[in-house]
Every structure is written in structure tokens, then in C-alpha cells.
């Protein structure tokens, strides 16, 4: 199954800019479906970015984060070709992870 995580990590000099787009419904639990049933909450709670085993960014998300969530940040201390590990876990315990190469 293709990964749910799309990442773009580009390095210039000492700074690496990271953009991530994740395929996830991020249901808040406040929305009803066509038949009037409440769609239960289903959202990513933690998203972690790690470089050389060290966390460079950690997101704690609630149901107010948009569907197919996106985040952008930058960090220092990585170079082109390094690995960047991205993983998330949602409130149902589902997870996905991917290791991307910094360009």
C-alpha cells in the first residue's frame, strides 16, 4: 500500500526545510454523515520527525487539524542525502512511517 506520508525535504547550507502532507481523514467527531450518523473522532495525535535518531520536530495534533494535514518547518544540522524518519500515530492506534532522503 503506498505510504500515507508525502515529504519534501530540501537542504541548502546548514538548513533543511521540511514539508509533509499526510493522507488522513482527521475526523473531528462533530460531523454527521449523509445518513445523519455522527462520524466518530479519528485523527492523528502525534507526528514525529527524526534525524540520526534525534527528534527534530514533534507535533501533537487535535481534531482541529485539517483533513490531509500539512506541516512545514526547518531545522539545522542535517546534510543532503541524510535520512529523515517520519512517523505518525492516531487516536485509534493506527500508525504509518516512512524514511525519506534529504535532497
Amino acid at each position: 500500500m503506498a505510504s500515507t506520508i508525502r515529504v519534501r525535504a530540501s537542504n541548502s547550507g546548514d538548513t533543511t526545510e521540511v514539508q509533509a502532507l499526510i493522507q488522513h481523514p482527521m475526523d473531528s467527531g462533530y460531523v454527521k454523515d449523509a445518513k445523519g450518523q455522527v462520524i466518530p473522532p479519528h485523527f492523528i495525535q502525534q507526528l514525529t520527525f527524526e534525524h540520526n535518531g534525534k527528534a527534530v520536530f514533534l507535533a501533537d495534533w487535535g481534531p482541529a487539524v485539517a483533513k490531509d494535514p500539512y506541516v512545514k518547518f526547518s531545522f539545522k544540522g542535517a546534510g543532503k542525502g541524510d535520512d529523515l524518519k517520519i512517523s505518525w500515530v492516531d487516536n485509534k492506534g493506527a500508525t504509518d512511517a516512512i524514511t525519506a532522503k534529504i535532497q
Partner: protein
Amino acid sequence: MRVRTILLTVAAALSTAALACFAASAIAAPDTPDPVADAKAFRKYFTDKFPKVKLEDFVNGPYSMNEDMRKQWKEKEEFPPYEFALDAGKEMFSKPFKDGKTYADCFPNGGIGIRQNYPYFDEKEGKVITLELAINRCREANGEAPYSYVKDEMASLTAYMAFTSRGKPMDIKIPNDPRALAAYENGKRYFYTRRGQLNFSCASCHVQSAGEHIRAEVLAPALGIMNALPIYRSEWGGMGTTSRRLVSCNSQTRAVPLEPQSDEYRDVEYFLSYVANGLPISGPGSRP
């Protein structure tokens, strides 16, 4: 029973009065439709009304009309949420049917970079054929069940095909065939006809009030409005087809929508695409 009769006489009296005064003012418009003149006038209306908007930018709808909206759009375009629909569409496009064929066998140029030629008028059938209809015809010709015109599969497929035509100028042809001219005119009539309890036509919003706010949304100009389809709408939280957009516009004016891909919808798409000839394809677009 008395109520109904009062109602009918009052309504009838009023409308005949209305008709009478119009008859005097209606100029005897030429009867034979002239698409070339229409297209020129259509474009001129919008370039006169919005002189600061570059011609090719009209295809970006509300974002060509409002800076605040444009900024939000640009930020989303950095890494657009329709990436997933695009990837799904690309995968579906190349997955062979049970009989081993693929969409590439149904479409000219393998289906790549051809979206700008749709819809076209099929002289054998004497009807307008849209991209969505052609996709389902291809599926049926290869023993596959057709997709719903308003659901994700059709949206992803058309999104991928639109993406392969990004930047190419819309290039719609009206062959020298009275039925083609009739279809074009039927589309034009549909576009300007008021419907629904709110008594709006497409033109009430997308011509008269283009660029203005309707609640939080900015109304897109009609010029190039088909060029961005299919669109990923935040409102729908997903990619939506041309059929879904037309159906939802109808229900917003409280008109009961017609069957997707009814003649009226195919013809209005034909008309709107023709008058946008030369403007670039920008689909799949993202919208509020």
C-alpha cells in the same frame, strides 16, 4: 378552491404585463447563433470589467478576483491536498481493464495532454461528448462497469488527465453542422436561464456578480470557469467532478438537479469551454 384561482389570475396578470413591456424593448436579436462573436463579446465583458486581471488568470476563478483568497490558495498550492487524488488517478489510468486494454487505447495520444479538446461534438452521434462521458464509454467498451459521475474514481481520473494538459490553451471546435450549433445554443440558453426558487441563472452569479462575495466565498468569473475542473474543494474535503459541480450549483439555487451528463449539462460545458478558447487548462484546481 378560491385561493388557487386568486393565485393564478394574479400571477397570470402580472406576467402578461411584464411580457408586454419587454416585447417593446427587446431588440430583434439575430436568430442564427454566432459563436465567434459570442466568444469575443464574452471575453471583452470580463476584460473590461476586470482590467487588472491578466487574461490567463481568469481560469483561477475566485483567486483572480481577491488577494486574500489568492494568498490562501498559493499557500495550499505549495503542497496541494489533491496530490493523493492525482496519484490515484495516474495509477487507475494505467491499470489495465479485464480485457487487457487501458484508457490509453480509447483516447487520442494515449489520453495524455488532450483534456483541452473536451468536450467535442461527435458528428456520428450528433451530440456533445464530454471527457467524463468518454471515460465511461471507454470502460463500457472494455467490459467494465461505468463510474459514478459524481464520485471519487471519476474525479481522480479526470484530475490526472487534466493535469497532463496543464497550461495548454482550451481548444474547442464547433464543426460546420447545424446540430453542433444547436447544442452550443442550447448550452448558452441553459447558462443564462434563471432556475430554482432563488431564481438565479449561472450568469446571475458568474457574470453579474463575478468577483463579489457571497457569504465567505468570492464568485468566480464565468470566463475560463471550466478550465480548472475537476476541482478539489475544501467544502467537499475531496476532488469533485464537473458533474458534481453543476449538480451542486443547481441545488444551491433550489433547482432540482438533472441527471449528470444530461444534454443540458453537456451543452453548457460545451458553450462555456468554447467561449474560453485560448485560456490555459489549470485543472485539477483547488477551490474553497
